[in-house]
């Protein structure tokens, strides 16, 4: 009996280095422990079981340790716009044009992040009974200083229904969306199903799309380069999606982004 238990344990240990089978191993290990305890009474072989679990916890497969946690990065404050402008002026006067350019880019990032935060504040809450989840609020801006602001907010019922709204002023993305708007073939339909179609949200041209795996996606092009996208998971139908979109002040967002 003892021999068979030990063989059983060896079998378990030989598989312990394969993390992809972790769940399977866990069950096997439990079974083995139960069998050992039942046979030997106290935990004589617990050290074996523990060493197996330790090697798994350390995750040192391949000789390289994996990171188990850390303090992460602290949020940096957005660049101080006034300071950056002053730095740009100083660099420009000293004919250090590259430094002046860098400071202007930093000032632009600072302005864009403030702009994004103001837009986030102005977004409605709740939206079709979904509450905002501010832990997932995002405002990002890139250093290129032109049309690179992205704002994101998530609304959720804390179960399986979720709305993610993304607002961006990137000419490249908006250009791609405009291809849809201006392309007669952008509307796909066959005799029974239609999974993409053009519509309007508060008078603005929009595209709505449905995929079983992703749910509803609604895109509205705002002005020359801005765009707003709603991704709706587990919404009942397109009417509910449109109701959610209509609760947003699109004109206000457009104005904040300087679009016409």
């Amino acid at each position, binding site marked *: 009996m003892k021999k068979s238990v030990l063989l059983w344990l060896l079998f378990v240990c030989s598989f312990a280095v394969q993390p992809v089978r972790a769940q399977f191993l866990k069950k096997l290990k439990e079974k083995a422990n139960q069998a050992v305890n039942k046979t030997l009474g106290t935990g004589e072989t617990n050290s074996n079981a523990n060493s197996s679990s330790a090697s798994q916890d350390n995750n040192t497969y391949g000789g390289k340790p994996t990171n188990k946690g850390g303090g992460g990065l602290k949020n940096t404050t957005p660049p101080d*716009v*006034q300071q950056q*402008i002053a730095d*740009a*002026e100083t660099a*420009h006067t000293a004919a250090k*044009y*590259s430094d*002046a*350019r860098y400071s*202007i*880019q930093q*000032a*632009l990032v600072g*302005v*864009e992040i*403030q*702009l994004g935060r*103001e837009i986030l504040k102005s977004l409605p809450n709740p939206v079709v009974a979904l509450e905002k989840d501010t832990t997932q609020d995002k405002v990002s801006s890139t250093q*290129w*200083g*032109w*049309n*690179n602001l992205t704002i994101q907010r998530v609304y959720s019922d804390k179960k399986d229904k979720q709305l993610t709204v993304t607002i961006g002023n990137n*000419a*490249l993305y908006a250009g791609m969306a405009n291809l849809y708007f201006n392309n007669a073939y952008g509307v796909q339909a066959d005799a029974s199903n239609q999974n993409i179609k053009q519509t309007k949200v508060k008078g603005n041209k929009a595209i709505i799309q449905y995929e079983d795996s992703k749910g509803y996606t609604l895109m509205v092009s705002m002005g020359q380069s801005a765009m707003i996208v709603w991704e709706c998971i587990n919404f009942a139908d397109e009417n509910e999606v449109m109701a959610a979109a209509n609760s947003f002040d699109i004109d206000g967002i457009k*104005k*904040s*982004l*300087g679009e016409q």
Partner: protein
Amino acid sequence: MRSFIIAVCFVTAGYPSIAQGDFKTQIATAKKSYSAGKLEDTHFALQQALQELDMIIGKEVLKIMPQKIDSLNANPKDDHVAANVGFVGATIHRSYGTQRNAEVEIINNSPMVNTLNAFLNSGMLGGMVRDENTKVVKVQGYKSRLEKQGDNANGKPNYHLQIPFSNALMTVTANGMTEEQVLALANSFPLQDIAKLVQ
């Protein structure tokens, strides 16, 4: 005719000070708008200031580029700087020679430069784009892509050389030159100094 030349000289001479004046105007507007909480106006003024800076930087680059390379003289009337804030920073253009000639274009602050760098520094991607007309060469230590583009009307070869350096991309289009002449031409540009200006 004389008055026309004087007028052109006046406009050309006056441009740098106008550009610099514009930078200061845009900065003043940005400061005023920011104090008033008008973020979008601040954003627009800063973008304009960035554009002015790109123009100034482009003109500084033209100043340090050689006036003559081998027997090819620069064509000052073709000098051109176009600022295009954001996706592509500025485009700086100069041409050399007449019959046997070369055109040089520098694009700075462009994210597209990274794409070319990825090609040049990745063995797999580099191999995919290489054929009998294309090869990777080094110009002042920078990996560059040299492409032969057929022959000109006199049966002499044309070349296209792309040199990514710092965050800029220099493209040399040479007509009627040998490969050695193209590389000698590219090696006569002060790439390190240009990199300092455009970084």
